[in-house]
């Protein structure tokens, strides 16, 4: 049996398969389909301090091998989460990661500060990269100083590992990733969705009420992979890979490119138990390929590639 355990700084995972925020509800939606105890971890839907309305519909449009969403982070707020949801999910034997949102750096710190008093949370992932909140999809992860400020403010109140979730809608991901590292992030996860749109040629209107949304799914995988590769080369902190992963082979690509763990997103909608299918296939692959520790293959292509 291969050793699939991995650490993201002080966050220990039993395996590198994590369900991604925004695609896994609050975890409870999936208990009919899979045993959450088997996951490396799961990231609950993004939480602001207060409940949040979200965007008007249509919020979704499917494109070639992809999905554009403009949910707008509708959610129940950190208090409802702590009182009603957390008691149901904190006893699972897996890393419970809370995705933290805010309108400014103070709110991020306020949400994390509130959660500090609650037991059963393994880490925070800072959603500094949602494209569906501000006009033109702007978010803190598009600016190194904004990124630094948010990460710093949460680090100052947090006793738990902090993961900064980065946006792909930037000219140079390494600049933002380094900024998160300097601010004290324990890890970065990338990528969030790509700012995108679709047009209805019958009505001659955008297909999303919000006009823009975030593209996810297999369509974005090669670009996400390239960004993980770039971030890995520049960072000392761990990188978590996200973007269109549907199979164990996809996940392996990210490991070889430098991701110490991966998050499975849109695929959860299609196959609610896909995380465990990927895990099973990963175990098989490791056995067949003589990989005794997943740790040994992380970033392996970098040893052979030059430049870039």
């Amino acid at each position, binding site marked *: 049996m291969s050793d699939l355990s991995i650490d993201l700084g002080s966050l220990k995972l039993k395996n590198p398969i994590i369900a991604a925020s925004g695609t896994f509800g609050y975890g409870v*939606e999936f208990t009919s389909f899979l045993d959450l105890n088997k996951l490396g971890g799961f990231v609950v839907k993004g939480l602001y301090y207060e409940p949040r309305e979200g965007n008007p519909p249509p919020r979704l449009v499917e494109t070639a091998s992809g999905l554009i969403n403009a949910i707008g982070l509708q959610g129940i707020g950190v208090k409802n989460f702590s009182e009603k949801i957390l008691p149901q999910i904190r006893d699972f034997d897996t890393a419970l990661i809370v995705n933290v949102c805010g309108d400014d750096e103070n709110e991020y710190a306020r949400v994390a500060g509130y959660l500090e008093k609650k037991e059963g949370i393994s880490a925070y992932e800072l959603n500094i990269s949602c494209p569906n909140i501000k006009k033109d999809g702007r978010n803190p992860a598009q600016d190194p100083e904004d990124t630094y400020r948010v990460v710093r403010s949460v680090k100052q109140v947090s006793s738990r590992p902090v993961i900064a979730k980065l946006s792909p809608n930037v000219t140079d991901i390494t600049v933002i990733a380094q900024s998160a590292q300097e601010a004290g992030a324990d890890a970065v996860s990338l990528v969030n969705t790509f700012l995108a749109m679709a047009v209805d040629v019958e009505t001659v209107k955008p297909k999303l009420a919000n006009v823009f949304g975030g593209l996810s799914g297999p369509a974005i995988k090669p670009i996400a992979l390239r960004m993980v590769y770039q971030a890995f080369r520049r960072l000392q902190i761990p990188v978590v890979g996200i973007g269109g992963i549907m199979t164990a082979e996809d996940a392996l690509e990210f490991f070889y490119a430098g991701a110490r763990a991966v998050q499975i997103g849109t695929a959860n*909608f299609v196959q*609610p138990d896909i995380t465990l299918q990927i895990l099973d296939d990963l175990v098989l692959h490791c056995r067949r390929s003589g990989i005794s520790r997943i740790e040994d293959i992380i970033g392996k292509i970098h040893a052979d590639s030059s430049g870039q």
Partner: protein
Amino acid sequence: MSNSPGYCQSFLLPAVHDFDILVSRIQTGIMVKDPYARIIRVEKENSYCLLSLFSPSIAGQAKPGQFIMIRVSSLSHPLLRRPFSLHAVDKDCVEVFFQKQGLGTELLSEKKEKETLDILGPLGRSFSLESGMKAKTAVLVGGGRGMAPLYFLGKRLAESGTDIKMFYGGKTSSDLPLRVKCENNGFDISCSTDDGSFGFKGLISTLFSREIKKTGPAMVFSCGPEAMMREIARVCREEEIPAEFSLESIMGCGFGACWGCVKRIRRNNKEEWVKICEDGPIFPLDSILWDEEQS
């Protein structure tokens, strides 16, 4: 499962919040993923298609108004599953009835008998059968393929001795694909077409409005185009007839995880975006804020 909170509510929507439904989800655990539901019958007529799928685990608990999510392709395009309301349950089989109108339904209509489909279900809340049974008459108002779940409901209510009255509308006679089937099942059905090619010439809501006054105590159930349901809702409010509506949306997952399929709903004197897949697809008359009513 019928006693669990969050399912099979009466037509007055109680104080249910998302997290209450999440709690009930854990208690019930009724969703089933059946990756190998075998197609045992395919029927096609014009642009319409019926599939009967052998899936005892889903058939055993499915109720009228609920839906299933079908993966139409094992490839990454189309990526998402498609939602289909249940048209009938026959022993161990569930039936869906749909119209070809896009890549997903096109691919699905090409499936053959003995092939298998990957399905999830039963999903969502059902029509309130109890309210239907309590009424002297259950009035089912469908538009086009929207008759599909009402047929299932009509069969169940008729079995329990409830009188059924159906109204069925379409643009033209070919938009009434389930008319003959309903007639053959002995349902009292009145039809309308916009062009007068079959039945009353005009909107089904006009015919409904005229006839409903003669029915006496009734409960209305409706499924069809939003413009039609909005008109039916208006008449029901004027006549003070309780009603339930089956709403439709693009869905990302079908089981409450993506928050993509929302409708404006009023509950506890508050308006909010509510998930059609989980809190619906069946909603009571008083809770729905049709597009022009939203504040």
